[in-house]
């Protein structure tokens, strides 16, 4: 453990950890903590999406499918087949990763809108399967009585305990995500995103890297899913709605596309926002997507540059730099 604390040097993540360590003190009811838990689970899932979309450039709009596969797998194994919870959780993540490998195959030949609709179709197929395979998943009636996680004889059911577990997982996964991003794997993913042919000529195995990106994304989402199953205690088919995939995607975009820390913040933020903004009702969604359009379309770097120039030139009377 000590090794990790020494290595978490980057300030943004420390800020995040501190804010969220103190947060429960301000949340006065259990439901708020439960929402925060969901937010942290989403944040973990978003990390995977950021690696896949923000860095590798593969648009994945069926992300919630991996979350659901992880959640339902662990639920079915631990409840229906009495598999010990930790093993069921690991299996859940593994099964999610296998589906991730499967989804990576179309990415070898497809790109852009083709791939994105492929992921939508994938998400839809998973959704249809969850809804229709009632005998397995409980379908519209939901899946109840998921066993609690038991660690060293202590059954984890308190919402506050889960909060700290989920926070630790989210922070840990963010560190892992950043390490991947700043390694040669991360650079290779950026390269593939931009120019596949040039990347291949530089010695990067495109298929291997894409498969890696998809496994990453399904790993993080699957992990989030298995944790969700055991802290929520039940699963409903609302989990697999395509809206949730779009939400995850929006979180990735608004967090700065390739910023893992940004994804953490928006992951929690956009999960909590609908709850906080209940008074805004339908306006909330409209404003949200309007903001997404603003974020993408407005040339922010140009505006900040122009603003800086105006401040420097007009107000501080610095002379214009000679180029």
């Amino acid at each position: 453990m000590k090794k990790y604390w020494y290595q978490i040097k980057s300030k943004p993540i420390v800020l995040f950890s501190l804010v969220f360590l103190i947060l429960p003190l301000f949340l006065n009811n259990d439901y708020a903590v439960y929402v925060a838990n969901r937010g942290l689970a989403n944040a973990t899932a978003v990390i995977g999406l950021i690696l896949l979309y923000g860095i590798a450039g593969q648009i994945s709009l069926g992300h919630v499918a991996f979350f659901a596969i992880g959640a339902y797998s662990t639920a079915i194994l631990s409840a229906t087949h009495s598999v010990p919870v930790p093993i069921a959780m690991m299996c859940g993540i593994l099964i999610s990763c296998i589906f991730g490998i499967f989804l990576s195959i179309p990415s070898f030949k497809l790109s852009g809108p083709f791939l994105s609709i492929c992921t939508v179709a994938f998400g839809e197929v998973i959704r249809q399967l969850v809804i229709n395979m009632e005998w397995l998943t409980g379908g519209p009636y939901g899946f109840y009585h998921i066993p609690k996680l038991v660690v060293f004889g202590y059954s984890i059911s308190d919402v506050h305990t889960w909060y700290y577990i989920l926070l630790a997982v989210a922070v840990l996964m963010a560190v892992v995500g950043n390490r991947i991003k700043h390694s040669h794997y991360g650079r290779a993913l950026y390269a593939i995103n931009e120019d596949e042919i040039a990347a291949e000529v530089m010695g990067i195995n495109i298929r291997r890297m894409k498969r890696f990106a998809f496994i990453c994304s399904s790993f993080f989402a699957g992990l989030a899913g298995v944790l969700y199953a055991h802290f929520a205690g039940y699963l409903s088919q609302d989990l697999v709605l395509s809206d949730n995939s779009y939400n995850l995607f929006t979180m990735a975009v608004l967090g700065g596309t390739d910023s893992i820390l940004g994804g953490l913040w928006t992951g929690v933020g956009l999960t909590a926002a609908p709850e906080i903004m209940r008074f805004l009702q339908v306006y909330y969604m409209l404003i949200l997507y309007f903001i997404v359009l603003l974020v993408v379309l407005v040339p922010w770097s140009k505006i900040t540059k122009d603003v800086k120039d105006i401040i420097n030139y007009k107000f501080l009377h610095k002379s214009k730099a000679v180029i």
Partner: protein
Amino acid sequence: MTISTFFQLLIGGISIGALYALPALGITLIWNAAGVFNFANGDFVMVSCFLTYTLLSVLHIPFIVALLIIMVFMYFFGVVTEKIIVETLRKDNSIALKSLVCFIALSLFIRNLARFIWGTTPRTVKNPFGNNPIVLFGSVYIMPHTFWIIGISCTLMLILVFLFKFTKLGIAMRATTQNITVASLMGVNTKWIIGFVFGVSSIVAGFAGALSSSIFYITLDMGVMFGTKAFASNVIGGFGSPVGAVVGGLLIGVIETFGASLISSQYKDLITFALLLLFLIFKPKGIFKLEVAQKV
């Protein structure tokens, strides 16, 4: 299965297929002209459906007039979308990715706007084509809307073909599609043309919506269904090929109708999505294969 059932299903399938083919055609138009994928196309259809509902069931405007109003509205809707998203991103390096994100956001925005205006209750429109089945031959009964849908769709497609092949505007459009720089050098107002193409694509989607409203429940989620099926039509027929879009659409309509009757209507959508996945994985270029060469 009797012959008459077969024909009934076939013609029904073609009719539904036409409804998928129209937005698919719209996607192809925009893709060829501007190089962007209108992810929100399905939601354009949805908006047109709700609009038809308001015009027909609430304001009791006759169908023909409603169609005209929808055409005008959708045209401007399309042009405005183009101005906001495509114009802004024109000079951007990663226009493909960014425009996709924008259209996804637009799609969700439109859906929520529709929810805001019309609420979440599914709507229905009284069938403007009447409910008396027409006898085709033998014991084959076809509902009038089937004919009307096929007829109107065909007419629309023929008009488009005429526009593209035989008018000066059509030639300008095709030139813009193939080489925007040279086209503008030749005096074509390419900025306006791309807006126009968006407008035409929206009108086509509008027709699909207006016609669909007579047979489907109008819900907020229709957009996803239409969008994905239109895309499936494109993929199966060959992305970028207008003929492919139409053929693909008809194929999907027919397969879906037969599948619903033979297997189960519950799994109808699953069949289409599975088919789409299979095509994307194994035959992404579709039936009318299009080679896209990349210069190294």
